């Protein structure tokens, strides 16, 4: 196993590679690949944290937990709320910030605050030739040259091995509240969630659990403001069903898809226009469903090997196989030909020898 301890060593290793490797951060997201492993967890540690400038820079192998602890000490957080895959993947290990960035992993707050890619200010990575490349920086506004930062986020290691990332962080909210609306079906749920998200009350979570018939809405902020908005939203939701304020915090469970944990079957993640969600979810004929992002994200638990993309047919959006046999089925939605050609072209330029997670993204 290859386990560099510094960026320079990483570059040296990559420059000497003759066969493909699977890049591994914490190994928690269950991503398939070749047997040879390039383990990035040796590149670890927060290199800069300036709470007053809302910025944090860390080496790519830094455990997410270490970052969250450092942020919490200053009353701040990663606003995009990255999920912990360990439960649903039944993996062990320590999730790393590089894995979060490489997978553009975002949770419920993505609907309001943005995705991991929106909080990524800069990257350093080693490309397929073993060169260290830097893009972006540590400041919040930067349009100097092309935004390779976004390109690296969500590239699942196929364009380069991240060595360092810099992130915008945000203050933690003083308090939060969750409203629960009892709804009969997905259509009503999505309409209720849309009403909430289209209100001026800054909803930061909008989910629907069909098993419980509950549409859930989160608001965050200073206490008085949260109370005020909770009341306003309760009135807004009254036409859709009975409204109650939940005492428990359901959001970590929604983020990590806990209702699917311990259940057999494939786990899919489908990104759609919220209004299309009820009908598309119907087409899945899933064993279980969970809706996040106001309906824009559908989690589907499917019988093992089921051809979900076939069941969905043509639709505006994409489906990712998160857990399941990816030797049978591509993890990512196949792209239309002209886009696939562009993506292929980029991979060939960034990693001409096809060393990094080959085949993963097409």
């Amino acid at each position, binding site marked *: 196993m290859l386990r560099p301890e510094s960026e320079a060593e990483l570059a040296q290793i990559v420059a000497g590679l003759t066969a493909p490797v699977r890049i591994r951060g914490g190994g928690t997201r269950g991503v398939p690949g070749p047997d040879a492993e390039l383990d990035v967890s040796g590149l670890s540690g927060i290199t800069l944290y*300036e709470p007053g400038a809302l910025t944090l820079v860390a080496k790519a192998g830094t455990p997410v937990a270490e970052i969250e602890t450092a942020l919490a000490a200053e009353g701040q957080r990663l606003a995009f709320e990255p999920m912990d895959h360990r439960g649903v993947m039944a993996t062990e290990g320590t999730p790393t910030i590089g894995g979060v960035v490489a997978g*553009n992993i975002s949770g419920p707050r993505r609907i309001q605050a943005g995705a991991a890619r*929106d909080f990524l200010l800069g990257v350093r990575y080693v490309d397929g030739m073993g060169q260290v490349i830097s893009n972006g920086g540590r400041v919040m506004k930067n349009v100097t040259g092309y935004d390779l930062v976004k390109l690296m986020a969500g590239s699942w290691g196929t364009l380069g091995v991240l060595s360092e990332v810099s992130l915008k962080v945000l203050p*933690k909210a003083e308090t939060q509240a969750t409203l629960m609306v009892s709804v009969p079906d997905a259509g009503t749920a999505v309409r209720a969630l849309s009403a909430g998200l289209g209100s001026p009350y800054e909803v930061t979570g909008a989910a629907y659990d069909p098993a419980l018939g509950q549409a859930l809405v989160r608001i965050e902020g*200073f206490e008085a403001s949260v109370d005020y908005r909770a009341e306003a939203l309760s009135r807004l939701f009254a036409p859709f069903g009975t409204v109650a304020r939940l005492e428990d915090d359901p959001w970590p469970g929604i983020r990590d898809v806990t209702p699917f944990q311990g259940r057999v079957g494939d786990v899919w993640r489908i990104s759609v226009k919220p209004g299309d969600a009820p009908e598309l979810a119907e087409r899945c004929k899933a064993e279980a469903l969970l809706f996040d992002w106001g309906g824009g994200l559908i989690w589907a638990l499917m019988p093992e090997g089921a051809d979900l993309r076939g069941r969905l047919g043509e639709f*505006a959006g994409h489906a990712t196989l998160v857990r399941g046999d990816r030797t049978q089925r591509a993890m990512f939605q196949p792209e239309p030909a002209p886009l696939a050609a*562009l993506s292929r072209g980029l991979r060939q330029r960034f990693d001409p020898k096809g060393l990094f997670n080959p085949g993963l993204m097409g």
Partner: protein
Amino acid sequence: MDMPTPNPTVLAKKPRLVQRLRQVLPADAVIDDLSETRAYECDALTAYRCPPLLAVLPSSTQQVSDVLRICHEEGVPVVPRGSGTSLAGGALPTADSVILGVARMNEVLETDYDNRIIRVQSGRTNLSVTGAVEAEDFFYAPDPSSQLACAIAGNIAMNSGGAHCLKYGVTTNNLLGVTMVLMDGTVVEIGGAHLDAGGLDLLGVICGSEGQLGVVTEATLRILRKPEGARPVLMAFDSNEVAGACVSDIIKAGVLPVAIEFMDRLCIEACEAFAKAGYPQCEALLIVEVEGSEAEIDDQLTRIIEIARRHNPLELRESQSAEESARIWLGRKSAFGAMGQINDYMCLDGTIPVSALPMVLRRIGELSREYGLKVGNVFHAGDGNMHPLILFNANMPGDLEKCEAFGADILKLCVDAGGCLTGEHGVGIEKRDLMLHQYAAEDLEAQMAVKDVFDPQWLLNPAKVFPLSVSESRRAVQVAAE
């Protein structure tokens, strides 16, 4: 600022090109007369001008595709253009290029309040996007000061920001999808009403690519419900350092205003003379705005004012009415205009870590004395995006060059302080030659590799963003392809 020598082979093709383009476009959409092409000779970086070979004004994605296919076949460079308000020379033509303007493509294609999106043609102006959804109390968040004129096309190409992006983000954070035409005429659809890319985040790299990867013809944008209300507070301080420390403390305290704008003495005086906003005369002024219901605004402003008091402000003025809010913003919004009244000015756009603010402002003051040119500072303080405005006299020989040298020094200072050359205006031609100060050769090579993939012949806006010496061999391919 050098531009490449026009390619004589391309220049000689003009009649043939006009003829071919007239076969796919209405007669009035192909502009070949010098008296009319002059209208496209520059953008808002007016110190540099050059009429293009031709200008075309297509009115559909199909027409854009036809134009690009023809130019691709003929090996003719194309410079996309929105409204021409770029401050970086992004839309500056070369004599051998075709300006492709999207101004005629300004329709709203779809508004969908339930899904919180709007789909528009890219020539639509920024403000008229909000205009299209305002009646339903929605808005499009990125608000560049040029929003009355600038087009969504240019906003996407430059990844433009605005005063309120501290809370709402810049263009890239509010862009969900595009229809774009590649240089060979291929039409691609990227993203849409759903969130996040299914494959590589191509949308992310297209946004901010300064018209070098493709011509954007349509865009899907996120729209938001308007907040119930907003209210600014004006704070006056007797030094830049103290104002900078106050900004940092506000951010640390967990209150996130929608905007924190900063002006220094020279700007305050200019705005006062120009707009009569009633600003206090002081060294540094902050405008901090928060949003929400009346009670929420009161609550947040109480917290902010409490923090400000710890920094011994000369004055704290919380707006009491809509008129007073408008007056507080009036000065800030007319800052560029006000500076323009005093003199010619060059507007810089470097970003620095907020913590480096006092040091950078002090150093800019020293440089100002060394160069003998005045500089006013007005900027988005919450995110460290500075807008130093250097005053110079365009009629005085040598003054422009001196101003450019001063500007370059300030931008290098921003980079050295941990920041970057441009926070929202883009590189264009203006900062092209400074790119090597921020990036190593391999870093630029990685960026150029992206252009190689989208536009292998380097025909789209080729002389921008990268230092000419660095992009030379690639641009030579285009000439050799003749």
